[in-house]
């Protein structure tokens, strides 16, 4: 097997091909061969690098450089600059954003990559590259040197907690299923990553699927399970494709299927796709979906270990939980437990979205503070604006203000602060965010995704949403805040599953930390962050306006009038507060009141 010092991924999406991607790739391979580099540098096809109309384009790893708008004539220079002289060919670098890899660049300070270690470095469609990075060694060790009980002991000692959000010790769940008799048991991987802002699992599935497969086989071995499913959301077609290829390749090498590595242990699995329902990330709803039903949760007990898929003992874990297992087996429990802090061991991937300079994926040990994550690892707030809040734990999590920035990122601290760890989505918000609007936004999401089975969630979230909508429209009433408090308490206490139980959390946390903003909306009919459309108005400053007419020509509702070279005027009755005029004005003549 060849070891390559660099990988070039050439985009072969229809747009890029239309612009000559085939010819560029051919030129690239010819040039590399001519320079004697073809054995050191691997050229691969890929899709969807990020933008789809700056092609032909390519990504070069390990640097993570994105070259765009390439022609065949550019190739000799590019090869000479980048691969012979070791310099980034600046003139082709994708210029519209400072980042080159939109999601995952080189590790930033304070990162420790366990789950993400191979992402971007290996070809996910080639099992040999995974094996070259110690892949499937852990499986070999587990099957030939350890008993199932020893595997459970090791993973327990490592302190690995479920990474899907609940944080339950992973190996303890396996031990429950291990103790159940009978041949029909199931191992399930929850790849229905639906939290807005979370895309860590997606990246791991697309870039390093074997880490997940290997972890699943080891877990299955420890619990005496022979059949598995990966339930992957339909919005991740590339992940599904990559997984299926990985499964085929693993089977072909005897790493999956009958009598794995000659050990006598058999385990096989298949991918099942979702169909667009956030609630199917809840384990009982997920299992209902695999069974071909509506994704409605059911009460627990009975827990999946007793009665899961088709009523049989089942274990459900998140993608990231499984992806940690091979390294734990290889490097030992002590190594893993040395990362993180007392109760939260190991590392966690996070997907940072929002108003920071470096959005994308990171992996850090537990115990790192929120401040370090935002300002050290992610480069601080964009455009030098002020930090306002960070949402942790997805739509069931809370918003934490600046006063909480020194909290350590771990399970207990997040819960104590009125939020939760969740799956790892972090949304950072700056001073231009309205917290009432954000709470309303999350409630819209949970309302939309509520399965409808239980009244507190189905009706309760709708009532909360109605109140929040009224508040944002300037029709808030004095007793609204008390009603919201009451509704939140009731829905949390009486909902059937985690979706309903967690739905009030964004509202509760913003009421707690940003009550003044709610009060401004209700009592003064003002939106301090100038976001809520009904409470703001756009105004053109007559002394600054040059009458260039750009705004009036772009206004979708023709609310702006004015002669050329005369100050323009916005009609507040017609204006829909879309903000397009302010965006297109070249003279900063438009303000928001």
């Amino acid at each position, binding site marked *: 097997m060849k070891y390559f010092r660099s990988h070039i991924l050439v985009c072969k999406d229809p747009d890029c091909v239309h612009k000559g991607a085939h010819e560029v790739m051919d030129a690239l391979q010819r040039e590399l061969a001519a320079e004697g580099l073809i054995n050191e540098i691997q050229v691969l096809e890929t899709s969807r690098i990020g933008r789809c109309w700056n092609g032909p384009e390519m990504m070069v790893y390990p640097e993570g450089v994105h070259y765009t708008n390439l022609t065949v004539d550019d190739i000799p220079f590019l090869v000479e600059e980048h691969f012979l002289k070791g310099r980034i060919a600046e003139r082709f670098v994708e210029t519209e*954003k400072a980042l080159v890899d939109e999601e995952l660049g080189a590790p930033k300070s304070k990162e420790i990559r366990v789950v993400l270690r191979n992402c971007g470095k290996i070809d996910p469609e080639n099992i040999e590259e995974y094996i070259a990075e110690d892949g499937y060694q852990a499986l070999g060790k587990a099957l030939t040197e350890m008993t199932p009980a020893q595997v459970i002991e090791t993973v327990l000692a490592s302190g690995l907690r479920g990474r899907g959000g609940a944080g339950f010790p992973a190996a303890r769940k396996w031990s429950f299923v291990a103790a159940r008799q009978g041949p029909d048991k199931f191992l399930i991987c929850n790849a229905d990553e639906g*939290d*807005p802002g979370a895309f860590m699992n997606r990246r791991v599935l697309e870039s390093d699927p074997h880490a997940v497969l290997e972890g699943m086989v080891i877990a299955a071995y420890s619990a005496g399970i022979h059949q598995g499913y990966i339930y992957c959301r339909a919005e991740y*077609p590339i992940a599904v494709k990559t997984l299926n290829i990985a499964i085929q390749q693993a089977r072909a090498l005897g790493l999956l299927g009958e009598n794995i590595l000659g050990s006598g242990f058999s385990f096989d699995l298949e991918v099942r796709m979702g169909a*667009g*329902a956030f609630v199917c990330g809840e384990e009982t709803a997920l299992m209902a979906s695999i069974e071909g039903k509506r994704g409605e949760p059911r009460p627990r007990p009975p827990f999946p270990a007793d009665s899961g898929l088709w009523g049989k003992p089942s274990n459900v874990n998140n993608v990231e939980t499984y992806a940690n297992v091979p390294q734990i087996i290889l490097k030992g429990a002590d190594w893993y437990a040395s990362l993180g802090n007392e109760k939260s061991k190991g590392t966690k991937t996070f997907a940072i979205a929002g108003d920071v300079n470096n*959005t994308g994926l990171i992996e850090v040990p537990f115990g790192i503070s929120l401040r370090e994550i935002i300002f050290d690892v992610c480069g601080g707030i964009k455009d030098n604006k002020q930090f306002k809040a960070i949402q942790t734990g997805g739509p069931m999590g809370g918003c934490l203000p600046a006063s909480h920035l020194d909290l350590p990122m771990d399970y207990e601290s997040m819960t104590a602060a009125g939020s939760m760890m969740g799956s790892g989505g972090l949304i950072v918000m700056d001073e231009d965010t309205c917290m009432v609007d954000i709470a309303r936004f999350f409630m819209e999401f949970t309302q939309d995704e509520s399965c409808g089975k239980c009244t507190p969630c189905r009706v309760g979230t709708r009532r909360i949403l109605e109140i929040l909508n009224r508040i944002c429209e300037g029709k808030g009433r004095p007793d609204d805040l008390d009603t919201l408090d009451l509704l939140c308490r009731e829905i949390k206490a009486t909902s059937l599953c985690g979706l309903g139980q967690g739905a009030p959390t964004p509202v509760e946390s913003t009421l707690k930390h940003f009550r003044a903003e709610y009060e401004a909306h209700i009592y003064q009919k003002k939106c301090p962050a100038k976001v809520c459309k009904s409470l703001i108005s756009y105004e053109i400053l007559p002394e600054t306006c040059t009458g260039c007419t750009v705004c009036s020509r772009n206004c979708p509702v023709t609310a702006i009038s004015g002669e050329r070279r005369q100050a323009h005027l916005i009609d507040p009755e017609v204006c829909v507060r879309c903000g397009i005029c302010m965006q297109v004005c070249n003279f900063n003549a438009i303000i928001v009141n």
Partner: protein
Amino acid sequence: MVVEASINERVHLAVEAALDRFGAHDDELIPILSHVNHEIGYLPGQALEEIAHALKKPKSKVFTVASFYGMLSTIPVGKHVIRFCESAPCHVVGGRQVIAALKQALRINPGETSADGQWTLLAVSCLGICAVGPAFIVDDDVYGNVTPDQVSAILQKYQA
């Protein structure tokens, strides 16, 4: 001379293909529905009937699953379907302006189909590509880092 299969024939063939591929079992219902939805663009009543028949289930049971999942539709859609991410991470990086531009360009609201049957605009939950938000999907094509001024150029690619 090319004879176009009628819509009934197309639906029937799609259902047959799905049943062939997945087998007529209860737990394959969602893959079967997804396959037919992808082929036809939505799930016509005829499809639900034929699937119910093959699975020996009442049509209501099939409908209850078809109407639950966001990526399945029991009502007809336009020639091109735009799925626009309306979740918070896209929202906080300019999603509002992009959806305004889409609504302006298409002259329809989310959930509606244009009068000429060309476009359906749907607001969907997080697509999982938040690092390149605001984002939307047209049919099977993904667009990221979208700004309002790019919207008409993107839509024009599909006017043919």
